[in-house]
């Protein structure tokens, strides 16, 4: 069912298997801990939820629980990195990116230190905890920081690769992870590369550019659109910064319309990054699916995606409307 060619991964239907990207992170960290003596992990009292607990059990001397104090955790991470360590710092996305933004800017990004912020519980799919915990602004505030690389893995397979790539990359990285188990949409042999997007489904009527949980929704939407005779190209834009500009420009030129989809505020995230590039290079009709300048609310993850128009059916509706605007 899943076959990856040099350029295009063909996915007929997303696999039924569901795994949370935070689980893949926890497993990858333990593997990396075995391979790399210089790896140090910090958490802010959420090690069970962010899945750094596995590392803390395997390598207790290289794990530091910093308590409920995210600002200090980021500064501490910077200090460890300034002494040559590769540091992973985890919390919920709201607290890691939101509470500690200034520390990330001053102590990590300005001196370009080797700190990997792996933030779980991003987006609406946090679910029942509601708006205080549903971080929908992290891509904006992390992506705007110079020297920061921003990655949103599409599934558990990609999360594993992204964590390894983050460890190998020199400098600050933000990896956005999810609480909810989500469909595995990529084949086991998928190789994540920083700054390289992957085309998961070919088509030339329009391109759907998605990240995170929306990649699965985009594939499902593309399947729905075939009934209307619309062949959508589906692109997994796992690295939000730096964008795969070449692949995006080609998609815009070849498809003539671009729809973006993200579990994030529609302004300041993936859609804004894509439109920013295309407006300057290859403008085509665009639409952007995301949360429309509002906070989330309590509910089950799947319900929330429907409620906020991020499910496959909603994407398909938006895609049809976008097709109308194609000249």
């Amino acid at each position, binding site marked *: 069912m899943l076959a990856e060619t040099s350029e295009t991964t063909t996915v007929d239907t997303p696999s039924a298997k569901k795994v949370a990207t935070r689980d893949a992170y926890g497993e990858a960290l333990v593997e990396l801990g075995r391979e790399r003596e210089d790896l*140090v992990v910090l958490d802010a009292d959420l090690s069970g939820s962010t899945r750094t607990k596995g590392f803390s059990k395997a390598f207790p001397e290289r794990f*530091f629980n910093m308590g409920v104090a995210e600002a200090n955790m980021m*500064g501490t991470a910077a*200090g460890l990195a*300034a002494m*040559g360590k590769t540091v992973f710092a985890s919390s919920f996305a709201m607290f890691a990116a939101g509470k500690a933004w200034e*520390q990330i800017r001053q102590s990590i990004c300005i001196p370009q230190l080797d700190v990997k912020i792996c933030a779980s519980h991003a987006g609406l799919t946090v679910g029942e905890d509601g708006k205080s915990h549903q971080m929908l602004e992290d891509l904006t505030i992390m992506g705007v920081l110079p020297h920061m690389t921003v990655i949103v893995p599409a599934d558990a397979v990609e999360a594993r690769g992204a964590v390894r790539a983050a460890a190998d990359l020199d400098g600050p990285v933000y990896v956005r992870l999810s609480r909810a188990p989500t469909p595995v949409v990529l084949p086991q042999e998928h190789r994540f590369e920083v700054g390289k997007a992957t085309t998961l489904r070919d088509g030339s009527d329009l391109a759907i550019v998605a990240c995170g949980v929306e990649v699965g929704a985009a594939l499902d939407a593309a399947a729905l659109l075939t009934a209307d005779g619309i062949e959508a190209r589906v692109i997994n834009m796992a690295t939000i910064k730096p964008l795969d500009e070449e692949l995006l420009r080609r998609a815009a030129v070849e498809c003539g319309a671009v729809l973006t989809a993200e579990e994030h505020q529609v302004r300041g995230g993936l859609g804004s990054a894509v439109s920013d590039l295309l407006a300057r290079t290859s403008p085509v009709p665009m639409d952007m699916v995301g949360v429309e300048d509002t906070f989330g609310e309590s509910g089950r993850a799947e319900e929330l995606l429907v409620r906020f128009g991020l499910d496959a059916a909603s994407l398909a509706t938006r895609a049809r409307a976008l097709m109308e605007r194609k000249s």
Partner: protein
Amino acid sequence: MALTPDRKRDIERAARRVRIDTIEMTHAAKCGHPGGPLGMADFMATLFMAHLRLDGETLHDPDRDRLVLGNGHTCAGLYSLLSQKGLFPPELLATFRKLGSPLQGHPHRNPELGIDMSTGSLGNGLSVGVGMALAARLNGWSSRIYVASSDGESQEGQIWEAATSAAHYGLSNLCVLVDFNNIQIDGVMREVMDVRDLRAKYEAFGWHAVDVDGHDIDAVDGALCEARETDDRPSAIICHTTLGKGVSFMENEAGWHGVAPDDEQATRALAELGV
């Protein structure tokens, strides 16, 4: 062990050089923060000349000491001391705050010049010191990690997050020197936002903490020795100082926190410093 007369003379000379450099650098830049470095000159010179293992020869030793200037706006003094320790030629000081200079208006990390961390936004330095101290201990290095801070900076909540974690992890290789001059940008610290007794606060957070006269070189040296001998907890040295010390018209004047002397003021200041 008490300072030898020779060593004490070196420290006094270095502190005087810090004051002269600070006036000349801020005057040449036509901006900057002269008050803090003048007040910190004596205790920072004691740290650099008698304790901190950082000079041109040890720069690339991984287990050398580190210094994080939490109150980064006082960096004219840091740059003066780094040049005096042979990290770069004193001529570079003339580029302070100028376009293209590595001597930025607030410190920017530069491993080749001995600038160990980027700072400027208050509250960040002590957390960085915690991370450095953890790393040094993990690596089995004898490095001591020094952080400069201030009474004004102690109004930042992050300082107390860092203080909590440093005590929790028993970071005896960490030492903070707090410049306590009772002045901040908007005026008298006791009136703007009184941080009260910082020695008692650090003690309550589980630190070894002492009050010293920040202009008494022997007292500062004694406190630094005591900190080094404290092997179960981090140390805080609350250095009570006079902002603008050494230049009569700058002393205890909040206006000199972040304003450069003009030609006439610089001449008068340098004359008072014996230039």
